[in-house]
């Protein structure tokens, strides 16, 4: 097989996944599946209240309980911590120390206070009931607006308010544009708090080695990042630690940070000299694992008489929960705020971003991480412009899109979009929507169609140097003398199909059989440095690193005296190996247009999703099967936000949705079959032409669905409802409209 032909045959082909046989037959190795002899088990004692001063922690009885090896409280953790706070904060921000175990105050229901370690999980749970913590309860505040308000209960000592950060993004002259506008539309919109709910709960297994080295198996999206963070928190040199992710049962952003409970478990293993394991329970996960979203936007746009949007202004309040996690500020500052203009030429902009602390589970990135919120806010406003101007929503989008000739395009918020043809995506969507006649619905039910267009930044490379001082994800490509290829890469997949995709890529680039390529990641001993997998970055960053390493291997093969296939050159040379870095490739900007057709039963308020049509442009596609799988899954999560999912607290800060009985993730019967299509504008920003697309479904479908429901409710004059669009909410709005 020739190299060129092989590349054409493999890259872009719907290869079924090599990961699957092991996972399908129960031979996966998730963290809870690993149990070295002598493993102890941990149970985390968590605050049952949202805000309180800790009067005392009494662990004596628990320490005496059957099977208990140790109980750790804050007093036993001197020198450990704090957790890393927020990264990339603007000047004047607060970044309070996030303790491993709470010492003086607890700031959310679920904050870790003590860790019990025993011979079995059951004995640890039994003993945890004997840990007596006395709390002096304080008033709590949970919502972003309430936490920002004057007189709100204060979380962090020494602060006059709960404001964590402020950043104002200004371009052009918004005030003048609004003064001159033919149309001004504004709306308060809420992107409600969500739980990521990866089906595998978070866990960690820490195994002290006889050589003094610590092996940490944990469900993490960022093995190298976790090692660096953990080393700093524990006061260890990073090389004394190995982090292994193993198989992972999803992450969706929530398995990016390191968590206080994990740190306490690792500390316990070091202290006791025995393996210690902890896996969270699902109900615990709803309290302990980062949530996503939780913003309130008060935004308005100005448009001329033709519906051309001239300006956007307003304020977005974003909750961060009780403490910052490292990437949470970036979701607001680098994603939500700067992406508000989406794919439209908006030249005047004045938006203030206000981050607050509240007595809730800390916020982290959740699939989309600022992108879905920005698209939701913008795309609702675009529909409201269409409504006010009496224009077709698709026509308003057409009039405002950045045209293909303008790329690379720098947005008024300072982002440089690499390439795109937004109208091509929208045209295909409109064609597919109109190709099927409106479905028949029961008499009296209201039909609605909604669309949304979006831009998805992907492939971010943190500007944090790795151990060798350079920025970038690395890949090592090794060809053995027998012609077998190993690709080790610093990104770290957790369900996306990276083994298959990177094997296709390397086999295609090197001109070797796909079966001869083995892919390694997720182990800091076996894979070179990289930032892991988040923010739709792995095809861009990991793919670029694999590309450069393959080019170096080909270059070495070319130095053999006659042209020959890589495998033959490797046989001659006794093997070839090359490591290369992605460097910091510019971010890519995937795009798309999504459409939803819904019916609403006005007597019950129930929404039926009849059609979801997704058109994505993610440039060059390595494996369309995997791309379509990402679209399906992200659409399901986006529909979950639009229709049913909502993390709720009562006035005292008690969680009201902390189990899968109360938190409604989509089920098979609540979803339609998604119609997924691709258009392609290759990225000029990386050698593969790929664009990150792992989050597109959450970005596109949420506004499309809400726009569809609002279109259905137009006969009642209902202008806007906040998500989730539950039957109760819609029914109440219809009742109110009927008078």
């Amino acid at each position, binding site marked *: 097989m020739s190299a060129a032909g092989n590349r054409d045959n493999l890259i872009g082909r719907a*290869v*079924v*996944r090599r*990961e*699957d*046989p092991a*996972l*399908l*037959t*129960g*031979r*996966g190795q*998730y963290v*809870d*599946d690993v*149990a070295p002899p002598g493993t102890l088990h941990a149970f985390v004692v968590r605050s049952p209240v949202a805000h309180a001063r800790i009067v005392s922690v009494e662990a004596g009885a628990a320490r005496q*309980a*059957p099977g208990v090896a140790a109980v750790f409280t804050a007093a036993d953790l001197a020198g450990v911590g704090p957790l890393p706070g927020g990264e990339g904060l603007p000047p004047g921000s607060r970044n309070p120390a996030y303790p491993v175990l709470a010492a003086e105050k607890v700031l959310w229901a679920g904050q870790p206070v003590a860790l019990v370690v025993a011979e079995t999980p*059951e*004995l640890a749970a*039994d003993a945890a009931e004997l840990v007596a913590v006395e709390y002096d309860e304080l008033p709590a505040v949970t919502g972003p607006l309430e936490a920002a308000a004057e007189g709100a209960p204060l979380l962090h000592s020494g602060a006059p308010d709960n404001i964590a950060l402020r950043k104002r993004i200004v371009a052009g002259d918004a005030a003048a544009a609004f003064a001159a506008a033919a149309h001004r539309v504004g709306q308060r919109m809420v992107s409600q708090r969500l739980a990521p*709910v*990866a*089906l*595998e*709960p978070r866990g960690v297994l820490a195994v002290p080695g006889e050589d003094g080295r610590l092996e940490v198996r944990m469900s993490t999206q960022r093995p190298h990042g976790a090692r660096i963070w953990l080393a700093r928190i524990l006061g260890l040199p990073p090389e004394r630690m190995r982090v292994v992710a193993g*198989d*992972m*049962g*999803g992450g*969706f952003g929530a398995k990016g940070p390191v968590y206080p409970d994990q740190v306490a478990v690792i500390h316990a293993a070091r202290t006791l000299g025995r393996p210690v394991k902890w*896996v969270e*329970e*699902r*109900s615990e996960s709803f309290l302990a694992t980062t949530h996503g979203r939780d913003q309130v936007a008060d935004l308005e746009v100005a448009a001329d008489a033709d519906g051309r949007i001239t300006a956007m202004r307003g304020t977005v309040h974003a909750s961060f929960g009780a403490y910052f996690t490292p990437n949470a500020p970036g979701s607001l500052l680098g994603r939500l705020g700067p992406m508000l203009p989406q794919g439209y030429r908006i030249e005047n902009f004045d938006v203030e971003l206000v981050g607050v602390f509240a007595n809730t589970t800390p916020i982290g990135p959740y699939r989309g991480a600022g992108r879905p919120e920005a698209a939701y806010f913008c795309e609702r406003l675009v529909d409201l412009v269409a409504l006010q101007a009496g224009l077709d929503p698709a026509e308003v989008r057409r009039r405002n899109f950045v045209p293909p000739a303008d790329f690379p395009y720098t947005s008024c918020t300072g982002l440089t979009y690499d390439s795109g043809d937004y109208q091509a995506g929208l045209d295909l969507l409109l064609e597919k929507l109109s190709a099927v006649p409106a479905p028949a619905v029961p008499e009296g039910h209201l039909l609605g169609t909604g669309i949304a267009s979006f831009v998805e930044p992907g492939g971010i490379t943190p500007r944090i140097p790795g151990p060798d001082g350079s920025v970038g994800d690395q890949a090592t490509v090794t060809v053995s003398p027998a012609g077998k290829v190993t690709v080790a890469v610093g990104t770290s997949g*957790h*369900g*996306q*199909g990276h083994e298959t995709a990177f094997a296709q890529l390397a086999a295609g680039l090197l001109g070797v059989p796909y079966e001869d390529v083995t892919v390694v990641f997720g182990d800091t001993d076996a894979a070179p440095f990289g930032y892991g997998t988040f923010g739709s970055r792995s095809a861009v960053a990991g793919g670029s690193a694999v590309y450069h390493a393959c080019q170096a291997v080909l270059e070495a093969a070319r130095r053999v005296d006659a042209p020959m296939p890589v495998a033959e050159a490797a046989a001659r040379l006794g093997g070839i190996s090359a490591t290369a870095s992605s460097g910091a490739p510019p971010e890519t900007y995937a795009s798309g247009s999504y459409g939803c057709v819904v019916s609403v039963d006005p007597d019950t308020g129930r929404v039926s999703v009849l059609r979801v049509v997704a058109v994505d442009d993610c440039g060059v596609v390595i494996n369309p*099967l*995997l791309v379509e*799988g990402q679209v*399906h*899954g*992200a*659409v*399901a*999560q986006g529909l979950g936000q639009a229709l049913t999912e909502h993390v709720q607290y009562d006035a005292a800060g008690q969680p009201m949705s902390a*189990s*899968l*009985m109360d938190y409604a*993730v*989509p*089920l*098979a*019967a609540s*979803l339609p*079959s*998604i119609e997924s299509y691709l258009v392609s504008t290759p990225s000029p920003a990386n050698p593969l032409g790929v664009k990150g697309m792992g989050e597109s*479904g959450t970005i596109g479908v949420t506004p499309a669905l809400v726009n569809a429901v609002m279109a259905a409710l137009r006969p009642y004059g209902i202008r806007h409802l906040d998500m989730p669009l539950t039957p109760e909410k819609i029914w109440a709005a219809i009742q109110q409209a009927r008078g």
Partner: protein
Amino acid sequence: MPGSRDVIVEVTVNGARHTAQVPARTLLVHFLRDRLRLTGTHVGCDTTQCGACTVALDGVAVKSCTVLAAQASGHEITTIEGLAPAAGADPGPGAAAGLHPIQRAFQQAHGLQCGYCTPGMVMAIRQLLSDNPDPSEQDVRHGLAGNICRCTGYQNIVAAALAAARQLREA
């Protein structure tokens, strides 16, 4: 301490007989995972919603997080590890050997991503197709009400179930 009483469990799992003494409160899923080291059966929740722990008890799908090991005593259990026929059968193009038709359909249809819900999904679909060998798409979607997947949007799981149904009918 509560739960300190032990019971004897005698159970046949994937054709092999096992006898063990376990605390009376031991759930079947923990017995399978921790005692027998059959870790393909997963725990995804604590309220019997997610179905990741689905196994067959005397041929009937149950959520093993909601069955005590003691209740399974004297019965036959099939887990995901015991579903496939012995290796050696022709797996079909691109698929690995040793896969049950449902497992093979999952690979061909890209019916799994992280794989965590997958063993439970496969065991639930085995039951579904046993009850209804020729289901419609809606039958499959409703039949999976007790299984949660957070990765796939269910679409390719449904496709896999329908493909497996076709293949099993023709077999």
